[in-house]
C-alpha cells in the first residue's frame, strides 16, 4: 500500500472515530436527560434546599435552557475538555478522571501483560498435543472465563490475603497490592486468550504452509514460533476491542472489591449515586479510548497480516 493510500485510510478512520466519539457523547447527553430525577437536587445531595435555592442553582448550571441549547453548550464544553462537575465530590469531572486514570491503566496493563504471558505459554504448550493436558487446560479456561470476576476476586482475597496474609488486602500504593487485583482481572482474560490463541495455532498448524515449512527442515518449535504464533496473534489482536472492554468492565468490579483507586471505582460509585456527569465523562473518555484502540488494532492487524492492507476498511 502506498503512503498516500495509508494516509487516506488513517484520515478516514480518524474521521469515523470522531463521529463515534461525538455519538457516544450524544448518547451520554441523552442518558443524562432521560434519567429520572432532578439533576439539581441530586447535585445538592443531602441538602434540602428551598425552591428558590433550587431555581438559583438551576439557572447557575444552565439547566433552565432549552435542551438543544444545553446540548450545544455541552458539546462546546466537551471540545474544550470540560466535562462538568461531579454531583458527589463536586470536583471537575475531567480532573477526577485524570487523577484516576493512571491506577486503572496500571491495573489493566499489568493484568494484560500477565494474561498474555500466561496464555501464550499455555497455548503453545497445549496446542495440538498432549490431549489430556489440553482437555484439562480447556476446562480450566472455560471455568476461568465463566466464573464472574467478583467471585474470583473475593475468593482470592479470602485465601491469599485474609488467611495466608501473602498480599495486602487493599490500596494502590505498592506492587504487592497490585498482585491480587491484576491476577483476578487477568484470569478471565487468560481463559479467553488461551482459547483464541490455541485455536489459532491449531488452525495454523493444519495449514499447508506449515507442512511446507516443515518439509524445508524447520523444527516443531520453530514452526510454532515462526508461523503458527503470528497467525494466532491475528485473531487475538482482533479481539483487542473486546479486551479493552473486558479490562475496563472488570476494573469496575475489581477496584471495588480490592478498594483500589481508579476509574472503575469512580464509575461504580457514580452509578450507585447516579452521578451522571461522571458517568457521562467516563463514557466519552472510554469511547475515545475505544476508538483509538480500534484504530490501533486495525493498524496492528495490517502490520501483522499484510493481506488486510489490500481491503481498506
Amino acid at each position: 500500500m502506498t503512503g498516500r493510500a495509508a494516509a487516506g485510510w488513517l484520515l478516514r478512520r480518524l474521521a469515523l472515530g470522531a463521529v463515534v466519539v461525538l455519538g457516544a457523547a450524544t448518547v451520554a447527553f441523552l442518558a443524562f436527560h432521560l434519567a429520572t430525577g432532578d439533576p439539581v437536587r441530586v447535585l445538592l445531595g443531602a441538602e434540602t434546599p428551598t425552591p428558590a435555592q433550587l431555581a438559583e442553582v438551576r439557572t447557575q448550571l444552565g439547566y433552565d435552557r432549552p435542551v438543544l441549547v444545553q446540548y450545544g453548550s455541552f458539546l462546546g464544553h466537551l471540545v474544550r475538555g470540560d466535562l462538568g462537575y461531579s454531583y458527589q465530590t463536586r470536583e471537575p469531572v475531567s480532573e477526577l478522571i485524570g487523577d484516576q486514570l493512571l491506577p486503572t491503566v496500571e491495573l489493566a496493563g499489568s493484568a494484560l501483560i500477565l494474561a498474555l504471558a500466561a496464555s501464550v505459554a499455555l497455548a503453545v504448550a497445549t496446542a495440538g498435543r498432549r490431549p489430556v493436558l489440553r482437555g484439562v487446560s480447556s476446562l480450566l479456561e472455560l471455568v476461568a472465563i465463566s466464573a464472574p470476576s467478583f467471585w474470583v476476586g473475593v475468593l482470592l482475597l479470602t485465601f491469599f490475603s485474609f488467611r495466608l496474609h501473602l498480599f495486602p488486602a487493599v490500596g494502590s500504593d505498592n506492587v504487592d497490592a497490585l498482585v491480587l487485583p491484576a491476577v483476578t482481572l487477568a484470569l478471565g482474560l487468560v481463559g479467553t486468550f488461551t482459547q483464541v490463541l490455541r485455536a489459532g495455532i491449531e488452525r495454523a498448524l493444519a495449514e499447508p504452509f506449515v507442512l511446507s515449512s516443515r518439509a524445508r527442515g524447520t523444527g516443531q518449535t520453530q514452526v510454532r514460533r515462526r508461523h503458527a504464533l503470528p497467525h494466532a496473534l491475528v485473531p487475538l489482536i482482533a479481539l483487542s476491542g473486546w479486551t479493552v472492554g473486558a479490562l475496563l468492565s472488570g476494573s469496575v468490579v475489581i477496584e471495588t472489591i480490592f478498594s483500589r483507586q481508579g476509574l472503575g471505582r469512580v464509575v461504580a460509585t457514580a452509578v450507585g449515586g447516579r452521578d451522571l456527569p461522571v458517568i457521562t465523562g467516563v463514557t466519552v473518555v472510554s469511547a475515545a479510548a475505544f476508538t483509538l484502540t480500534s484504530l490501533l488494532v486495525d493498524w496492528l492487524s495490517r502490520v501483522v497480516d499484510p493481506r488486510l492492507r489490500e481491503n481498506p476498511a
Partner: protein
Amino acid sequence: ACGSSGSPASAAPAAGGTLTYGSDQLPDCLDPAVSPEDITGIVDREVFDSLVSESHDGTFHPWLASSWSVDPAGTVYTFHLRTDVKFQDGAALDAAAVKASLDHVVAPATASQYAASLLGPYTGTKVVDPATVQITLSAPFEPLLQALSTPYLGIQSPAGLQAGKTQLCTHPVGSGPFSFVSWTKPTSLELKNNPAYNWAPADAAHQGAAYLAGITIQFNTENASRFGSLTSGQSQVIEDVPPVDIKTLKAQSGLGLLTEQRPGAVYTIGLNTAKGPLADPKVRTALMRSVDFDQLIQSIYFGQYARAWSMLSPTTPDYDATLAKSWPPDQALGNQLLDQAGWTAHDAAGYRTKDGQELTLRWPAASPRQDRAALAQGIQAEAKAVGINVQYVNEDQGAYIQDLIGGKLDLVDTSFVRDEPDILRHFFASDQTILKGGANEFGLHDPQLDQWLNGAAAGSDAAQRKQSYLAAQQYIIKNALAIPVYVPTTLVGYQTKVHGLALDADGSLLFHGAWIAK
C-alpha cells in the same frame, strides 16, 4: 467511658511516624460548616480547634477561649480568647476570626446542612476587642456550649474563608494539631503535624504538638478489605471494625479494640405519622412490636451493638433507662392491633388489606450500608409474618431526597451522634422540618413534644430539663413515633503499637495524643 489505647505502663511517647487510618466513609466536603458527616468531624477535629472542649463527664473546659461567661438571661455568651494561637497559615487567632467563622456558618450561601442548626437561636457575633468575642441569641439555648465544642463549629482561618466554597471544601485551614496536606479523591487524605501547636484543650491528656508526623486517612468502604488492611498492617487504626471480625481481632495478638457506645440519637426507624397506614398509631405499634429486633441485631452485629429501647443512646445525658425491655416483641399483639385497625383481609401474597388496599410501607434508602440492608431485610421478613409488606427500595440520593421532601415514604432510617439530649428536638420539634435543616421528616406537629423539647433547650434548670427529656422519650415510645433499633457503637481497631488514641465526648477518634511505638 473514656476510651484510650495502649497500656499506660509502656515507655515514653515517641514522636514521629505516619499513622494510616482506615475510614469507612467518604467525606464529600471538608468544610465543617457545610458537612454533617462523621468523617468530616474526625478529619476536621484534627485541623480545627473549638472555643471550648467537652469532657466525657459533660463538663466544659477552656480551649481557644481561656474563659467565658453567660449573661443571666442566657442569651449573651462572652468568650475571652487565648492570644498565642496561630492558624496554620500563619494568621493569628482573634475575635474577628471567630466572628468570621461563625458568620460563615450561618451565611445562606454556605448552605450549611448541620452546623447552622447547632447554633440554635443565634442572632450574631460581636467583636468586643481583639481578644473578646460575644455571641448573642434571640432566646436562651442551653446546648450552645456543647455545640461550640464540636468540630462542626471549629474556628477557621479568615484567609481560608475568603478562598471560596470549593477551596473551603477541599483545603481546610484551621489552628489544630494537624494541617491539611492533600486529598486524593476518593481514596485517601493526608494530614501533617502542626509543629507550632501549643494550645490543646485544658482537659487534654497531652499538651503541645502532636506526636505523629502525619496521618494518612484511607477511605475504604469495603468492610472486609478495611479489616484486612488492619490485620495485614497496612493501616494502624481502622474505624468501624466489621462486627463479624471482632472475634478475629480479639484473637489476634497485636491488635486492640476501642469501643464505646456513641451518644445521641440511636439508629432509629422514623415512621410517617402524617399520612398512609402509619398515620394510625395502632399500625405503628403493630409494626414496632412485631419485629424481634433483639435477635436480628444479635445475628447481624454479632452482639457488638446493643439493642436500643429509647431514641437516646444510653451514653447521652438524660437517657431514660426505664424504657429498657418495656416493649418486647409480641407478634400476637401486632396481629391483634392490625385487626383492630381494620386491616383484616389478606391478599394472595399473604399481606393484609383494607378496602382492597394492601398494607404496604415504602422504605427507600440511598445506597445503604450492607448491614443496614440486611437488617431491613430481616425486618421485612418479620413484618411479613403479620401481613405487612415493607418495601425496602434502594434509591439514589436525588430520588431519595425528592421522596423525603415529597413525603412519599412511610419509613426512614437515621441515627445522629451528639452528646446532647437536645438531639431529640432536631427530630421531633415542629419547626425542625427538613426544609429548615431539621430531621422532622414527616412534619410531625405535636404541641406536647414541642413544649418539652423547646422548653428544655431554653431552660437552664438541669432537673427540669431532665424531666422534659425523660417525658419526651417515654412519649415517643408510647405513641410509636419512631422505632429505636440499635445503639451505634464506636468500634475502632488498632495495632497495639499505637498508643494514646482517645475518643472525644461524641465517641469520635482523637489523634492529638497518639504515638506509635518504635
